[in-house]
């Protein structure tokens, strides 16, 4: 069985390109091609997707104007959903089963949460907001870092475990037996895309709400 780190397949100008980077490019190509084709033939379908994402995110952060958060969160949801599901194409591995992709995504979320908070309250006001009971400020910082780590490890572990279980069952019985596990990992991939987006929305919601650092 191969190792849990992706293998490097080629070098471009001395930069190692692993198999998951190739499948990230395939994911980006697929999403772009889908959007271009659909917007030419039936723009209503794009409207429907946008409507779905808007209702999903506004269900998580109610009583907020979500127009400035929707581009980031909707892009995250679409990208993670497609890149979790792309592992069922036999020669590709899911980009999120490499630890680097989820860590990059959750670092983006980490910085954008604080940027949205600073945009709302100003720099001094946001720090004051974080340190409202002053003796809890160190724990607040630990919480901010650990939830970023757990956000990325959750996505990585779920997708990697799905791929590993499919591979193990494939090694035991190659024919029909892996199918239910592949279906389960597809379902878990869509669910994890929802969970990642929902948790990011909750973090942004807690950062822009006054005195409400819940999670």
């Amino acid at each position, binding site marked *: 069985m191969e190792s849990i780190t992706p293998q490097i397949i080629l070098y471009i100008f001395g930069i190692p390109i692993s198999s998951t980077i190739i499948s990230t490019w395939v994911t980006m190509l697929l999403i772009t091609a889908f959007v271009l084709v659909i917007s030419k033939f039936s723009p209503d379908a794009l409207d429907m997707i946008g409507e779905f994402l808007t209702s999903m995110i506004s269900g998580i952060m109610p009583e907020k104007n979500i127009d400035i958060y929707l581009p980031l969160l909707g892009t995250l949801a679409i990208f993670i959903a497609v890149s979790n599901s792309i592992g069922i194409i036999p020669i590709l591995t899911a980009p999120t089963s490499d630890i680097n992709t989820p860590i990059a995504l959750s670092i983006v979320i980490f910085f954008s949460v604080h940027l949205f908070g600073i945009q709302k309250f100003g720099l001094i006001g946001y720090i004051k907001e974080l340190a409202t009971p002053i003796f809890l400020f160190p724990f607040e910082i630990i919480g901010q870092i650990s939830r970023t780590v757990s956000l990325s490890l*959750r996505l990585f*572990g779920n997708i990697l475990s799905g791929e590993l279980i499919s591979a193990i069952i494939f090694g035991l019985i190659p024919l029909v037996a892996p199918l239910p596990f592949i279906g389960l990992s597809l379902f878990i991939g869509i669910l994890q895309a929802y969970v990642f987006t929902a948790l990011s929305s909750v973090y942004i919601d807690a950062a822009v709400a006054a005195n409400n650092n819940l999670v």
Partner: protein
Amino acid sequence: MSEMNPELLITITTILVSGIGIVLGTAIPAIVEGRAVLKALDGITRQPEAANDIRTTLLISMALLESTAIYVLLVILILLFANPLLTQFFN
């Protein structure tokens, strides 16, 4: 048994600990998630109009509960496929 190869000892210990750890680390979050689902279903049957809010909160909190099982899985995957002790002492 008295003269055991230390590499073999580390391997056997790793396999035993992985088996015990994955059972405990998945069984306990599964039980706790079951209780969370039970309470959520209780709430939905009492107030069906609040079903959407309860479902969102349930999914988010189940993801938070699930992450402990994922940590156990990752630790065990590292122990099995990229054991730091074996590479540190024997290579």
